[in-house]
């Protein structure tokens, strides 16, 4: 395939040969200091485990009540997509699409792509034959912001204060857990090892 076993720094493009890392070790680029690889504390299958957990949590996060608000006896149940619907009805359709993509669809797509790339090599339908999938993960990571939405909801609840009575619903906790899974899966996900290069587990970069 013409791909050698060198590791290339994500930012500066400096090439390194591979060494073996102990659990908890991190390999930094010798030239610019960017983190290139880390042997996670959670073991080699952590990315797969976190991705699948996140995908499962996405269902209750989308379906269960996010926040329940009450004002003078009037109770309103807000779900993940209520905000998107409100923006859409308000005529801000592009914004509604952006919020839907960054807050819901792309995090799930990122989890799906990382899960597909982390599947054990023995499986028949492993995704080696989809060569653009690593690049999709790279694009998605710039546009999936579940953790930002978690902070936004917390800020909103503080800001509402005495305007309305609010109670956090189970959907929000599931969404928080999903956001944590996205971050942890992404941390444990090793791009170099998922590229279709003949690279062994537990190896990383050295100058």
């Amino acid at each position, binding site marked *: 395939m013409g791909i050698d076993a060198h590791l290339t720094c994500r930012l500066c493009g400096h090439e390194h040969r591979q060494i073996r890392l102990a659990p908890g070790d991190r390999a930094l680029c010798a030239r610019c200091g960017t983190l290139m690889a880390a042997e996670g504390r959670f073991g080699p299958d952590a990315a797969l485990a976190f991705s699948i957990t996140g995908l499962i949590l996405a269902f209750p996060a989308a379906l269960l009540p996010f926040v329940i608000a009450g004002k003078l006896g009037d109770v309103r149940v807000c779900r993940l997509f209520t905000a998107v619907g409100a923006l859409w009805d308000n005529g801000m359709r592009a*914004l509604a699409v952006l919020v839907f993509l960054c807050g819901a669809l792309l995090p799930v797509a990122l989890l799906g792509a990382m899960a597909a790339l982390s599947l054990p090599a023995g499986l028949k339908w492993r995704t080696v034959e989809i060569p653009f999938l690593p690049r999709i993960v790279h694009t998605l990571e710039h546009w999936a912001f579940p953790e930002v939405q978690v902070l936004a909801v917390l800020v*909103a609840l503080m*800001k509402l204060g005495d305007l309305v009575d609010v109670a956090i619903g189970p959907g929000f906790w599931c969404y928080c857990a999903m956001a944590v899974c996205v971050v942890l899966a992404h941390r444990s996900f090793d791009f170099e090892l998922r590229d279709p290069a003949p690279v062994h587990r537990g190896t990383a970069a050295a100058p």
Partner: protein
Amino acid sequence: MNLRLSPVLFRSNSTAAALAVAAAVMLVPANLLPVLSTETSGYSRSDTIFSGTVELWRQGLWAIAAIVFTASICIPAVKLVGLGWLLLSVRRGVPRDSRRLTRTFAVIDFVGRWSMLDVFLAAFLSGLVQFGEFSTVQARSGIVAFAAAVVLTVLATNAFDPRVLWPTQAQASPRSFQP
């Protein structure tokens, strides 16, 4: 060459500069137009990004005000200034402080997403607080401009290729050359 490092079609410094300028332009209406309007039992107010932060501060929610101020005002400004600095540094060939500039780029790349906070905040509030005449929150046009500015800064960061901060293989010392 590694697959994921092969150059993306639109990745160039002039694209990054154009997107950064567009983001700076969009930040003007984003900061001048109201982003949220609140109506509570006959009392109504419209807030811009800045006045919303000041209102949070006045209510005594200092930590929240600091978070919103950082995400909505500091981060977009820092991103644009940082990108401008990077783009100016590479205009006259390979800069000398490559390592510091690369760290700057990594920071810009990392903090950028948090400026979406205000967009999610406005979306969530306008979805949640819909109690007819008692209490209503409506997202206003400023938030669309702000979201556009955030998207443009993310695109600008993605378009900037930090490898231009470093000498190419041919310029580098023979030691780092990989046959």
